[in-house]
């Protein structure tokens, strides 16, 4: 666990769809300026946990604390205020297909940006962010005119539009070639340094996990609870749970705990 102050804290979270339990006893905190990885096999509830954290799905029980405020117990206005501090990159980038990349990046500024900000200023900032992710020449293209990797980077630029305190990235490297994936990892680390945001990443791309993770949690689909805590590198060296070891070493899982 990072020794810096916690930016977001999850306490006693129980995740379930109707009566079907997904995970329980999920407890962790994420320090400011750190990259926290949510790990686990397919179907263990990583993306569901992210949905609980970004306000898309209420948990069955437990708290998600931003500062001292429990998101799910807060008034709607408070929830809106917290959400304005988020930047989210969805698994498929979730770019608005009728808008150009620049318009996509400008959208959060138009909806939640400072009052009185002129369109020209928004466009300037959008171009700056697209340049940051290496997409300046594609600013006026539509999402269907670019590749999957470019979409991910454009989604990241949109997530950064309002200088978020909390950056949530759902499978940022999934489906990317190794070079694009490496570039994206470097970009995430660079952004963490520059903005000091708490970055939460859902991923099972091993090279990425090891490259960017400062801390993390490992969810298990069989026991339906977290089975390990710590940075991916640290877990590789010291965690003795057979499934975690199999996962991080990319080996065949032991029968008793695998999916």
């Amino acid at each position, binding site marked *: 666990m990072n020794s810096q102050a916690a930016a977001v804290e999850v306490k006693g979270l129980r995740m379930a769809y109707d009566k079907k339990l997904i995970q329980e006893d999920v407890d962790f905190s994420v320090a400011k300026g750190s990259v926290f990885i949510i790990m686990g096999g397919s179907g263990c509830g990583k993306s569901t946990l992210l*949905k609980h954290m*970004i*306000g*898309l799905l209420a948990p069955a029980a437990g708290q998600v604390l931003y500062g001292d405020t429990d998101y799910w117990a807060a008034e709607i206005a408070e929830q*809106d205020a917290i*959400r*304005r501090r*988020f930047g*989210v990159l*969805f*698994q*498929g980038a*979730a*770019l*608005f*297909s*009728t808008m150009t990349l620049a318009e996509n990046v400008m*959208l*959060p500024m138009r*909806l*939640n940006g400072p009052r009185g900000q002129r369109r020209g200023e928004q466009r300037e900032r959008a171009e700056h962010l697209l340049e940051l992710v290496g997409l300046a020449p594609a600013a006026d293209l539509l999402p269907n005119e670019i590749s999957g990797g470019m979409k991910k980077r454009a989604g990241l630029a949109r997530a950064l539009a309002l200088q978020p305190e909390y950056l949530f990235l759902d499978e940022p490297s999934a489906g990317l070639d190794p070079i694009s994936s490496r570039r994206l990892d470097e970009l995430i680390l660079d952004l963490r340094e520059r903005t000091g945001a708490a970055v939460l990443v859902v991923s099972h791309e091993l090279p990425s996990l090891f490259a960017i993770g400062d801390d993390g949690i490992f969810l298990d689909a069989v026991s339906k609870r977290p089975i390990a805590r710590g940075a991916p590198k640290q877990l590789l060296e010291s965690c003795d749970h057979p499934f975690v070891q199999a996962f991080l070493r990319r080996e065949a899982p032991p029968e008793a705990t695998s999916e």
Partner: protein
Amino acid sequence: MSPNRRERIRALAALGRDALRRFSTLHEVATLLGEVILAFARLLRGKARYDAADTWAVVQASGAGALGVVTLVSLLIGAILAFVGAVQLLKFGAGQFVADLVSISTVREMAAVITAVVLSGRTGAAFAARIATMQGNEEIDALKTLGVSPVEFLVLPRVLALTLMMPLLYAYSCAVGLIGGWAVSVGMLDLSSTLYWTRSADALEGTHFLLGGSKSVCFGFLVAFAGCFHGLRAGRNAAAVGEATTSAVVSGIVGVIVIDAVFALCAYALDV
């Protein structure tokens, strides 16, 4: 437990499940309706957040974009009414009353119903497909994380656009339908042009337009609402877009016929 008894219990359980499912759908409809009303109130207070460019595109697609198909269908409906009417009326030597039949049935019933059915298949389906695709691409989730209500951003502009465009298309459909009837009456039934238009003008009353116009407003709202509703509740798989589109068209058309029947009953009761 005997097999017969088990069978009866199973049938009862299936009936109960179906009733609960329908009740749950009704609850979802009521919730969305409430959200649309609240979003409209925010729009009136100038607080609604929506994309003006997208709204304008929807207005164009629902209005001007539908003119071609509305023209063709309305023209043919007017012509068909004239044909069917003429075959019966000529038997009684009352061929000139074709104009009355075409004008009253077009203005009072057919223009509004046919326009709504066409737009249900065209625009309602497009709304459902667009919103369901956005659901699958996580675009709706992205809107929510930006603190924007999808109802305000996507549903309200579409519902308003179609509710406002439908009466205009209805008026246009009336004109084209009357022209269709005129073409058949003059070209094939040897009715004079002057007689056709004079009889039409005499037959039509303000209440006919009022009734047809009121229906078109309701139909516009219903078709757009059905499209958005099925789009929003779509699943996130590839089949979901097709399912949402089909459901939107079916519920749009069935809804239009049901509302038309209610209007007919009310008009009868009020002697309009």
